[in-house]
């Protein structure tokens, strides 16, 4: 491939249940920043069936072009039809940079596209920039989160990155109208080797802790399932939600929706209170960019105590109720 033939920044805009995913808007925001540095156009792509409203909403944000591919085969996410349509669009438009959200969908789709196009893909980027040679600099955590590696893809296009939700800020809306190009890709259902039989949503109210502004998280040091109630009380008075380390989830003391960390969620709340969490690097990778971190632990030398803004050496069973009491007294 000739690197020089490629120009522009393109974002894959994921949507579910009739709503644009937050991460897609974050990528549009970052995409605009990168496009400015490269002095190129920013486009966004939506795939779906009768989802023009999604494309229209995307068009109200600061993007230069919105492409909407409409087909019944694109109604629910499946790897093959999505990969085919996006590869066709990429081969036609030749963007030099292509961003995908690091969601379940994105992590299934992006590598398939990268392999089909024989190009480089960097997953879970936490920072994106441009170097003097117009290469995309993709920075991501490695080795459980304590090495930050900056990756480049010099000779292949597009340079692909996936980014987790909550890493970048949302795009700005703009006043002017963006043109929406609608295409109807020809997809044959016989070519699609997988079929979706049904989609089952969470039975109970699904928590998305990555949106929370305050998280009170429990680690193994919480001791038992019952003590989580103390953390919940603090979360409640602060208007926040619970979180958990992998150990607590594996013990089945709490659902996996609450898991923070490498194989859980990445969060960036205003306040993160880590109760009885030692601070394994996999956990810290998921919350280290929180604005203010309080850690409560009996062990002063636990890793999390070194990275917390406020490290309280003490028994969480006593400190948590005290904090709840005092906050309530504030009225």
């Amino acid at each position, binding site marked *: 491939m000739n690197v020089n033939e490629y120009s522009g920044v393109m974002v894959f805009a994921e949507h579910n249940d009739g709503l644009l995913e937050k991460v897609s808007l974050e990528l549009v925001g970052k995409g605009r920043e990168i496009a400015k540095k490269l002095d190129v156009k920013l486009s966004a792509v939506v795939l779906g069936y009768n989802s023009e409203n999604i494309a229209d909403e995307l068009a109200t944000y600061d993007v230069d072009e919105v492409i909407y591919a409409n087909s019944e085969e694109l109604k629910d996410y499946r790897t093959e039809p999505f990969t085919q349509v996006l590869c066709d669009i990429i081969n036609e438009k030749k963007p030099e940079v292509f961003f995908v959200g690091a969601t379940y969908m994105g992590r*299934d789709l992006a590598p398939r596209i990268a*392999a089909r196009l024989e190009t480089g*893909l960097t*997953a879970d980027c936490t920072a994106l920039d441009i170097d003097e040679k117009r290469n995309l600099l993709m920075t991501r955590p490695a080795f459980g989160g304590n090495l930050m590696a900056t990756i480049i893809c010099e000779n292949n296009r597009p340079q692909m990155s996936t980014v987790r939700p909550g890493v970048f800020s949302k795009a700005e809306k703009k006043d002017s109208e963006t043109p929406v190009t609608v295409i109807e890709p020809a997809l044959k259902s016989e070519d699609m080797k997988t079929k979706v039989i049904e*989609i089952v949503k969470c039975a109970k109210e699904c928590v998305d802790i990555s949106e929370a502004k305050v998280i009170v998280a429990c680690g193994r040091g919480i001791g038992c399932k019952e003590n989580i109630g103390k953390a919940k009380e603090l979360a409640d008075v602060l208007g926040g939600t619970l979180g958990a380390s992998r150990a607590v989830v594996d013990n089945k003391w709490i659902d996996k929706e609450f898991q923070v960390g490498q194989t859980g969620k990445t969060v960036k709340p205003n306040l993160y209170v880590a109760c009885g969490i030692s601070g394994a690097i996999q956990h810290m990778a998921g919350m280290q960019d929180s604005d203010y971190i309080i850690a409560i632990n009996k062990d002063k030398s636990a890793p999390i105590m070194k*990275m917390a*803004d406020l490290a309280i050496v003490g028994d969480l069973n*006593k400190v948590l109720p005290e904090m709840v009491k005092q906050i309530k007294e504030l009225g």
Partner: protein
Amino acid sequence: MNIIVCIKQVPDTTEVKIDPVKGTLIRNGVPSIINPDDMNALEEALRIKDNHGAKVTVITMGPPQAENALREALAMGADEAVLITDRAFAGADTLATSRVLAAAVKKFEYDIVFAGRQAIDGDTAQVGPEMAEHLGIPQITYVQKVEVENDGLKVEKALEKGYMVMKTDTPVLLTAIKELNEPRYMSANLIFEAFNKEIQIWDAGKLSLSSDLLGLKGSPTQVRKSVTKELKGKGEVIDMSPKESAEYAVNKLKEKLIV
């Protein structure tokens, strides 16, 4: 049925610590394990073998010591093992790695290729889907349940909130997550057989791949630089009575307008 399971031997990153003086990772003495998601893939393959009959072949691309991981897989019940090793593979990114693994898989008759969703050292979750692309077969990732039916597989694919029930033909590539199953231990009798089995060793030549598709040369992505993450600036450490600690903390929260 023929199932190929792809495993990776990784350092147990939960045991990796940072040298407080040098700020570098201490990798010495960190035990090597079979990547956890791969264990779920292997376990599911073994369950299918137990319930429906199947031949389970385990493959890995790695340095010579990855042989130990294969022996453990045999001791869990895998039938055969192949070690794919060659200096030429060094420096491979996920695309180059997936090419090698796909080339190896192509040498077998297979119905299912099973891999773990992601490795705890690389954490990309890319190799599985990229392999599926090279093999030209469908993929289902984040698999939390598999049922073998007469005309294919019924698979539950996890979503952020809930899951999707899918039907697929074979051959297919599946990537496993920890919710799929509880992996079994090695069995004593299989441990004593494991070292008697011959593990095939394949190098680049055996896979007939052009050298510019391998290793660093065959990798579109390269590491420009790698930096140990700077720990946040030192915070405050307090060691007081619960009441005093709580007071201090609540005052901080007041300052930050969180309460």
